[in-house]
């Protein structure tokens, strides 16, 4: 599957409290969460993001809380994929479990600028800057994770298992 979008770029250690501040966690409605996504570090994100757009972060993206509301808010805001130098482990699990594509590519995260239009091939992990044609290769997922992604997330996998 190929994704295309404009890049929103952030630094290292983007934590779950800025992705979705706890003051909004008295609901778990993804649409409502999306309205406040990133607002403490980027007031314009929620109004400017368009379906398909891509977030690029630095090291340790999604650090902090276990709140699944963080990847849910990102997904519901229309973001098609997150690329980072590294991800915090609970955010990584949560994204895979809910079907938000995430890719690890320190080179792409370093070099691609905010506002650039890029294409991401989820099957191969190839990331292409559409204007310059420059490409980057994301790290492949371990086999187990690929299976989980193919199954459509953890709940789909559980359904299959208990259905048997």
């Amino acid at each position, binding site marked *: 599957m190929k994704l295309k979008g404009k890049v929103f770029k952030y630094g290292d*250690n983007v*934590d779950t*409290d*800025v992705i979705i*501040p*706890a*003051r909004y*966690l*008295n*609901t*778990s409605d993804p649409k409502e969460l999306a309205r406040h996504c990133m607002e*403490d*570090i980027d007031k314009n994100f929620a109004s400017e993001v368009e379906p398909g757009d891509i977030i690029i972060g630095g*090291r*340790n993206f999604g*650090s*902090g*809380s*276990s*709140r*699944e*509301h963080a990847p*849910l808010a990102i997904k519901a805001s229309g973001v098609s994929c997150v690329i980072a130098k*590294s991800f*915090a*482990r*609970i955010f990584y*699990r*949560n994204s895979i*479990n*809910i079907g938000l594509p995430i890719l690890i590519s320190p080179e792409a995260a370093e070099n691609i600028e905010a506002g650039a239009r890029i294409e991401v091939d989820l099957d191969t992990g190839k990331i292409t800057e559409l204007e310059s044609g420059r490409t980057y290769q994301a790290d492949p997922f*371990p086999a*187990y*994770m690929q299976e*989980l992604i193919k199954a459509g*997330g*953890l*709940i789909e*996998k*559980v*359904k299959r*298992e*208990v*259905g048997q």
Partner: protein
Amino acid sequence: MIKMGMTMVEKIIAAHTEHETVKPGQIVNARVDMILGNDVTTPVAIREFEKTGVDKVFDKDRIAIVPDHFTPNKDIKSAEQVRMIREFARKHGITYYFEVGRMGIEHCLLPEQGLALPGEIIIGADSHTCTYGALNALGTGVGSTDLAAAMATGHLWFRVPETIKFVYNGKLNKWVSGKDLILYTIGDIGVDGALYKAMEFTGEAIESLSMDGRMTMSNMAIEAGGKCGLIAYDEKTEAYLKNRAVREYTPYYSDPDAEYARVIEYDVSKIEPQVAFPHLPENTRPVSEAGGVKIDQAVIGSCTNGRMEDLRIAAEILDGKKIHPDVRCIIFPGTQEIYMEALKEGLIEVFIAAGAAVSTPTCGPCLGGHMGILASGEKAISTTNRNFVGRMGHPESEVYLASPAVAAASAVKGFITHPEEVV
């Protein structure tokens, strides 16, 4: 074939699978002993659980649900969320559902109730589930979908982590606590210094810590990116669990020839009380270099520092003193049992006489939920675990992390202070 030594986390994981040994990097499906959710994360888990088509939880005695974040309910939406989890708990006959008045802050409550035991795998849809490492349990934070899958099947996938061994040599200085050791460690290795890894806390200084101090350390393993923060079982663990443990348990020890990703040694006699400056727990400085930052609020409590030892040390400092006129000091005992014990020991009287507010257990201000939100430009010294942008309120407020001793001393002085300046 020669059998390689294993670390304690590898042994715990292997014991919960069909494998005799496991290796770092391996992904396994493991049995879980206890599953934990709170009022923020459980509603999402219930929605996902209902999609699985499973009509009964795998074991009603192995699930704990603790509404502690926005409780006592701060608004209508929070009340609706808690009603949803309360109804789920009733429907499934969940044994360990803790209602307001009986509940506590989850990571103070589960150990106290004997629900987190050595050698167990405990998953919680709360990142500070790593607290149970102090009890030699692989406690680790997961998401709501993980919680749903585990409630349905009793199993979950885990990547076996590499282990970093931390050795704390020497004797602690006066006023230096588990909080200072873990802040110092995070300051040294950084907020992703143990990303995806198990942290193992060892050495003379760890042995000398109380269970409360050990839980403070393990609690903040996540602040270095760690999957868990394990401590070996000893006579202190045994004494703590006597009369508490609800199940039989088996502790696991690392083999002498176990392989570590890194071994890091510290001489704790060189460590003084620490303060983590905004906006990352790694921005630590010795309190003597904190520059007397003026504060508006002091928060003492939370899953990090809401236990008896924490309250005792705060009371020792506040006894006969007054909170600075420009400071609001708010104290949160971690559980009802802790609250009652503090009452019996006269600590609550000390706090109120000093001019501090004492609250029923809640996560409240730690995550900027309620009960002590900061306005723009305000600064708090707090015994909690995170000082991210907007964590305790307005995005332009600031949180400084420290021990109960430093927080109490600072509440008296009105600026960040070494406890010896007050006592």
